[in-house]
């Protein structure tokens, strides 16, 4: 019993200490980001890199999610004779929820793991130590550009996911099933609010971008400099980032749409 309580105590203490340290690293990244405005090329290079990693996966996934939404939405709406509202259902589902959330989950699995492995291997190869010895702060030179690139890329990728998803819903609903095209687009146009729906979705994807990218770069920075350590850090990125996205989604949905 004492051993059990001790283990809980140790776990609690370590969790608080780790959270505190992570917050300090995040603060240090943000604080050291001022110089990036002068050298924004470092960020744009990473946006290009991260975008390339994820774009195809995001676009194809968006298309299939749109297909499924078109089918499932039609079956359900048809029961109530409301299949004309299919465009509205697809667009709201994507802009409010599925676009930001699924993009963030895919981003964590694709770009997040790459970021963690890249930084972890740089650490294992003493590249970060070499940088420190050259009086160059790795937080500023390596972590900060990748962090901001992820934060900027996430809303763009989520927008692409939603746009392709709506197109997928259109193909299945209008082109294949035969829902009226005019109703599909006009209901969507009339029912989707730019501020309440689209902007809240963008806001969600920015928050997810901060969470997922920070977790990815932090795990790489904190990884043990061994093959096993980098592998574990990569796994931790996927698990922690995915759970964080789902938890944050609940929190943001409750705050935005209550």
């Amino acid at each position, binding site marked *: 019993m004492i051993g059990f309580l001790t283990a809980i105590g140790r776990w609690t203490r370590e969790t608080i200490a780790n959270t505190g340290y992570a917050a300090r690293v995040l603060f240090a990244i943000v604080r050291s980001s001022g110089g990036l405005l002068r050298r924004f090329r470092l960020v744009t290079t990473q946006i290009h890199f991260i975008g390339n990693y994820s774009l195809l996966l995001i676009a194809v996934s968006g298309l299939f999610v749109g297909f499924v939404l078109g089918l499932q939405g039609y079956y359900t709406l048809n029961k109530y004779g409301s299949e004309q509202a299919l465009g509205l259902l697809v667009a709201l589902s994507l802009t409010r929820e599925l676009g930001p959330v699924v993009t963030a989950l895919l981003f964590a699995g694709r770009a997040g793991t790459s970021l963690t492995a890249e930084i972890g291997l740089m650490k294992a*190869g003493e590249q970060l*130590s*070499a940088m420190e*010895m*050259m009086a160059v702060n790795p937080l500023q030179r390596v972590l900060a550009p990748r962090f901001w690139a992820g934060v900027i890329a996430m809303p763009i990728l989520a927008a692409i996911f939603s746009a392709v998803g709506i197109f997928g819903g259109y193909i299945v609903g209008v082109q294949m099933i035969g829902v009226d095209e005019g109703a599909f687009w006009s209901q969507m146009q009339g029912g989707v609010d730019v501020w309440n729906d689209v902007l809240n979705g963008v806001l969600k994807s920015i928050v997810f971008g901060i969470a997922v990218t920070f977790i990815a770069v932090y795990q790489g920075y904190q990884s043990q400099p061994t093959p096993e350590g980098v592998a574990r850090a990569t796994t931790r990125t996927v698990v922690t980032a995915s759970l964080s996205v789902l938890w944050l989604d609940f929190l943001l949905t409750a705050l935005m749409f209550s």
Partner: protein
Amino acid sequence: MSNLVEIRDLHFRYGERPILSALDMEFPRGKVIAVMGGSGSGKTTVLRLIGGQLTPQAGSVTVKGERVDPSNVRALYAMRRKMGMLFQHGALFTDMSVFDNVAFPLREHTDLPEELIRDLVLMKLHTVGLRNAAELKPSEISGGMARRVALARTIALDPELIMYDEPFAGLDPISMGMTANLIRKLNDALGSTTILVSHDVQESFLIADYVYFLSKGAIVAQGTPAEMMASADPYVKQFVHAEPDGPVPFHYPGKSLAEDLGLGARP
């Protein structure tokens, strides 16, 4: 002041495990000082403490009379601009070409125009004999060449203090001789001070002005290479002449074989 680096009564431990104890060392300007000893003797830890990558529990390290204090990041980074460190495996940035690796400290710390950076980088690469490899990636060059590129990067800003962590490890005899020669020549050409951590006796004695021998985190012998060669100290003798047994035991300390096999416990 004649010493560029001074270490006074330095104590360092990882957790409860002591690594260095009551260490006193001096590194005079313009000299090549070798820090030698077996694996786990604390040689690399000395370099990391001088570079401010580790914080000692007691004692001090001073560079140019200024105390190395890892808690004062701004002062530490200003101090590191006068230092260069060559890591054991080079630690080149694998996503950059050889040219960009050497240009990295110049681009980070100066506002020099790109044309001038190009000339400086090519000169540094020429010094290490790799000017024509400028466009190659680190994955396209050998380990010895990578070490020389890292050396060119280390001296890019003409540091006053150059530290080498096992620069000869894993090199073939030609590369080893070439690297040793370069270390000495660069030290004399730049007027810098060199700290050379190595366990390679032949090459280190060839270029060093003074040698410290470390064992279990303490200095067991010191002197010129000639004095060390003639030393009767059992540790130095075992190390210099590569004797398999002596003060440094072959077996890791612990229980005896008889105890492990349970032979002592039998009636």
